[in-house]
């Protein structure tokens, strides 16, 4: 015991040590409680707050046409530019703002505002292309800026064909979510499953230095392979554009081609559409101008309406009275029920009194006594009212239902409209009579086409669809379209009989504007007055001109419906005149494209066009021989020995009795002639005009089977300078045919 310490000190120090031991005991007890008993819970809380899941974007599936190689929609990497203003050095801020504004094409003041924000994160621009990203990286390197600018990978949707089948493909939003069309319909399949990268972050959100990550890979979306053929789609889009231009169609148009046996849609074009790469811009410049002229407070609503309209897929969202096209259904019912045969006669006195009522309904013409076949070819309304009456409401409605008009077709596109119709008990005589020739009930074009396919394919109602199959990222097929039929509506025999009648209609009846030599087209025209709605001008009449048909008659393959919404009545509004030529043009291109064999009748063989042989480069002597062997006439221009140029060129079509002009010196090749007006003429007048002008004409449409037809369009406009001998295609229609 040292001198300094007393016993009391010892004792008191010991008491202090006891206090200390108690304090340490409490602390150790608390540590045991926190670390060992509650440890797991606290640890989880600590991990939870430090883990930040980052979404790994799944690449959206590609959309292919039926070939499986042509890309209709594809996602590619783009970048989101973001800033971490807090990490940008003060002296760098003006440079960053200036350079980013320049690279991203933004206002410098706006960027400067973002740069000066007192935050950890702010977006600058989204969906920036890779080249621009590289430019930003370069700028960062140049100025030695290591922090503060974030480039985050993202995907952008590209539609390589531009303004092409937009309403079918649809488009995606900023977060790559499908908003319309197939992008919307198949959104979950296309988008795949986003992955997650869970990493540990510090309290301000940057990565921690230790390994602490969990990766759930993103599963890329499925690819869609459509039934739509890019080539056929092109024919339809071009055909519609031409028709719209020719008839000043006010409210757009649509055309749908379908494989009659499977329901596979080969092409679906809507006009008045848009570029899916830029869905928020009003594609129609005229409409945009009109909107710009509106007062500001009305613009927003007008823009919204215009956008909705251009996104609308008319083929499945528009409802209309199918008009006379529907007669192919009524006719099939009557044949099936043995109410008529091809030879059954009926007398059309222009006006038809609906039985049991005092209501008279007029025909568009007075046809007199006609057989059923003639009735179809004349598109005689009283005949079909009579057939409807004979069928009676319940039978009529049974078939109406069986043709699928009471339900949605279930096509795999969004926005299919509901049909409007009378049920069997609602069908009083007048309603039945009008429905019999296609008025008074509303269906969509796709409904009509599906019913036409049933008439064509032996009576089977098929399921229209646009997606043939889906592929996963390894190329395995994960879904295939169901191509089986829903039900048989009419017998194969009825189908065959109706096909023959419709073939005759397209050859020599009201539908002959759709005639194509060798392809045995079956068709029916339709002209329907639009139901007056609020948005229509009540002082004018608004029509829908349509043409629906299929070919070839002996083994129908393709059904095609052409639909023009509000052609200019000042020009024409009849289905046969307005929609027929487009049908003819498209159907011919489609069947050529599909390689369908042409089967000519003897009569047709005489009128068939031929193709020009190749004679350019040959001596004049050889050339003349080759051309004459082909049964064509030769005309030589110039004094040379060899053929420098030939018109028409090798492979071009010209009439069987056409002429080939051979140019033998350079002087002669420079001569041109002006194309004359060839519209509104009879066949012989058109021929004469062409000969006088030194050109040739090739005839399509009604002129091939009818002598009373007049020319309606010419493929090279009047006044164009062409070489002598050039072939101008002139289409003919039967004048003044109503339905």
């Amino acid at each position, binding site marked *: *015991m*040292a*001198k*300094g*310490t*007393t*016993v*009391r*000190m*010892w004792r*008191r*120090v010991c*008491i*202090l*040590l006891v206090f*200390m031991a108690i*304090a*340490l005991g*409490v*602390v*150790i007890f*608390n*540590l*045991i409680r*926190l*670390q*060992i008993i*509650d*440890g*797991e*819970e*606290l*640890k989880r*809380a*600590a*991990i939870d*707050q*430090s883990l930040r899941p980052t979404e790994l974007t799944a690449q959206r599936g590609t959309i292919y046409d039926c070939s499986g190689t042509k890309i209709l929609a594809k996602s590619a990497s783009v970048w989101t530019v973001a800033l971490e203003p807090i*990490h940008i*050095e003060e002296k760098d801020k003006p440079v960053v703002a200036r350079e980013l504004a320049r690279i991203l094409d933004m206002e410098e003041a706006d960027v400067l505002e973002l740069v000066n924000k007192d935050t950890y994160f702010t977006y600058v621009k989204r969906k920036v292309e890779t080249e621009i990203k590289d430019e930003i990286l370069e700028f960062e390197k140049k100025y030695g800026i290591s*922090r503060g600018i974030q480039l985050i990978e993202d995907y952008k949707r590209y539609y390589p064909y531009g303004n092409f089948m937009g309403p079918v493909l649809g488009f995606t939003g900023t977060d790559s979510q499908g908003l319309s069309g197939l992008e919307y319909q198949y959104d979950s399949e296309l988008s795949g499953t986003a992955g997650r990268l869970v990493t*540990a972050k*510090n*309290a*301000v959100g940057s990565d*921690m230095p*230790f390994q602490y990550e969990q990766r759930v890979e993103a599963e890329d979306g499925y690819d869609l392979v459509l039934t739509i053929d890019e080539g056929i789609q092109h024919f339809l889009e071009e055909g519609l554009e031409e028709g719209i231009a020719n008839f000043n169609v006010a409210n757009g148009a649509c055309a749908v081609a379908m494989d009659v046996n499977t329901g596979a849609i080969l092409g679906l074009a809507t006009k008045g559409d848009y570029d899916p790469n830029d869905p928020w811009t009003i594609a129609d410049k005229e409409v945009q101008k009109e909107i710009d002229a509106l007062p500001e407070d009305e613009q927003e609503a007008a823009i919204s309406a215009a956008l909705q309209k251009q996104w609308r897929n008319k083929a499945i969202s528009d409802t209309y009275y199918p008009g006379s096209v529907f007669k192919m259904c009524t006719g099939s019912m009557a044949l099936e029920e043995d109410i008529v045969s091809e030879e059954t006669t009926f007398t059309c006195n222009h006006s038809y009194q609906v039985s049991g009522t005092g209501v008279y309904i007029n025909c568009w013409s007075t046809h007199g006594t006609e057989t059923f076949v003639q009735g179809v070819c004349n598109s005689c309304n009283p005949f079909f009212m009579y057939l409807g009456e004979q069928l009676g409401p319940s039978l009529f409605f049974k078939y109406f239902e069986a043709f699928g008009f009471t339900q949605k077709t279930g096509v795999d596109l969004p926005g299919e409209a509901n049909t409007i119709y009378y049920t069997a008990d609602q069908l009083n005589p007048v309603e039945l009579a009008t429905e019999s020739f296609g008025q008074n009930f509303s269906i969509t074009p796709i409904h009509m086409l599906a019913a036409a396919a049933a008439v064509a394919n032996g009576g089977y109602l098929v399921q229209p669809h646009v997606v043939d199959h889906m592929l996963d990222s390894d190329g395995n097929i994960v879904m295939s379209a169901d191509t089986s039929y829903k039900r048989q509506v009419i017998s194969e025999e009825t189908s065959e009989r109706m096909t023959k009648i419709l073939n005759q209609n397209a050859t020599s009846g009201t539908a002959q504007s759709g005639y194509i030599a060798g392809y045995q087209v079956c068709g029916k025209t339709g002209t329907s007055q639009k139901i007056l709605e609020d948005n229509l001008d009540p002082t004018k009449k608004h029509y829908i001109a349509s043409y629906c048909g299929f070919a070839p008659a002996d083994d129908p393959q393709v059904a095609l419906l052409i639909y023009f919404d509000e052609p200019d009545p000042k020009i024409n509004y009849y289905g046969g005149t307005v929609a027929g030529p487009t049908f003819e043009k498209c159907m011919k291109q489609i069947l050529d494209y599909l390689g369908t064999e042409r089967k000519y009748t003897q009569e047709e063989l005489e009128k068939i066009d031929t193709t020009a042989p190749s004679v350019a480069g040959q001596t004049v002597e050889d050339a003349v021989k080759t051309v004459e062997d082909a049964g064509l006439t030769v005309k030589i221009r110039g004094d040379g020995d060899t053929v420098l140029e030939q018109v028409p060129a090798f492979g071009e079509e010209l009439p069987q009795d056409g002429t080939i002009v051979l140019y033998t010196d350079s002087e002669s090749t420079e001569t041109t002639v002006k194309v004359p007006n060839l519209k509104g003429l009879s066949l012989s007048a058109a021929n004469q005009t062409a000969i006088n002008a030194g050109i040739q004409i090739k005839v399509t449409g009604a002129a091939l089977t009818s002598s009373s037809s007049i020319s309606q369009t010419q493929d090279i406009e009047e006044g164009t300078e062409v070489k002598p001998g050039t072939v101008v295609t002139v289409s003919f229609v039967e004048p003044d045919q109503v339905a």
Partner: protein
Amino acid sequence: MREQKKRRTGSGKINRADSRTKQKKRPATAAAQSRAAGTAVTIPNESAHMPFSPRRAMKKVRKKYKIFSVRGGVDRMFLYVLMALLVFGLIMLFSSSYAVSYFESSGSKSPSSYNYIRPQLIFAALGCTIMFAVSFFDYHHLHKFAFPVLGITLLMLVAVLTLRETSLVPRINGTYRWLYLGPINFQPSEIAKFALVLIFAHLISINYDKMETFRYGVLPYGLLLALIAGLVILEPHVSATVIIVLLAAVMLWVGGIKKRWYLLALLLAVLVGLYMFFFTDKFDYAIPRILGWLNPFNPPEGMEGDTWQTRQSLMAIGSGRFFGLGLAQSRQKYLYLPEPENDFIFAIVCEELGFIGALAVIILFALLIWRGVIISLGAKDKFGMMLGIGLTAQVGIQAILNICVVTNTIPNTGISLPFFSYGGTSLIMLLAEMGVVLSISRTSNVDKI
């Protein structure tokens, strides 16, 4: 009557105990003892105090203390434990500070993870040098310094209060606690702790016999404590005040004042508490804090921010489980836990090294305290004894309070962990104080393991 009697018996007991000790170990030292108690500088024949140290017996001729003395070795055990704590502390400081350091400097030209550990290493080296130098310095000279140090401390405390918002006393974290004197800056409240220990040790050692009286045993200490603690609490610096009051209580307790004063102080505290509860609004302010302390994960409205640090600390401690996440593997130091390099460094120890590591730290502190107490008890005079106890108590109180705060055993208040927390001047102060303990150990009657 009874009181008088009791006091007599009480003092009688002590006298008996004293005389028993003396009788056993060194006869006829009553006079020497009273001399020693009376004047500290003129210490009599040393051999009389150290009968069991043959080596010291050889030096009995020495009358005067030299300024530097190498008599006897320092207590190795204390030194080793101290060094272990220091090295452990530096390693943990680096581990806990590098993320914060990097983040704080990330906006600058040269981001660095070493902005805390680098100065701390330099201060530690400097501190060790000072500690060894002090250990050679005869602590008895501190008698002379007791009042000057107190005076300077009071001056600095007044300065901190009066020179606010000048370059000398800048605002740091919303308070005025630091003195900036050229290159060095420190908290006068840190020095106040030492000043209090020194002046108490000085006064108790010279007035030990009168400690039971009010006039010599209570009044001067009470006044000094009121003066120092009053100035510190005015800053306001509550945690330092608490430590100063506890230090005073420990020293007076060991110094031998009557137990009744503690009861009285307790009663006074309760009365003040009741007064504050009924007549002031201090408790309105304190109640949500107390609720926040009791439920850090479900704090009352408005206390979410104030309990954030505690929550993060508890998560860090819990994350460690038994063996810890491994050195440098803390997650919470990545800016989740505020001040991981300072007051909450122990939470990072718990997280990285687990219960085992935390226990190791506690055991090291316990060993240091135990050894410090042994050294003090073996000190050859009351001044050494009181000084040793005071300095050991200062480390012990701070360590225990810090660990209590970090584990949410007591409400959150800013107390740093000795040898671990960042702070250059306070580390130097601490090591110098430990140098004094080592100095005491040189002449202390202990088996220097």
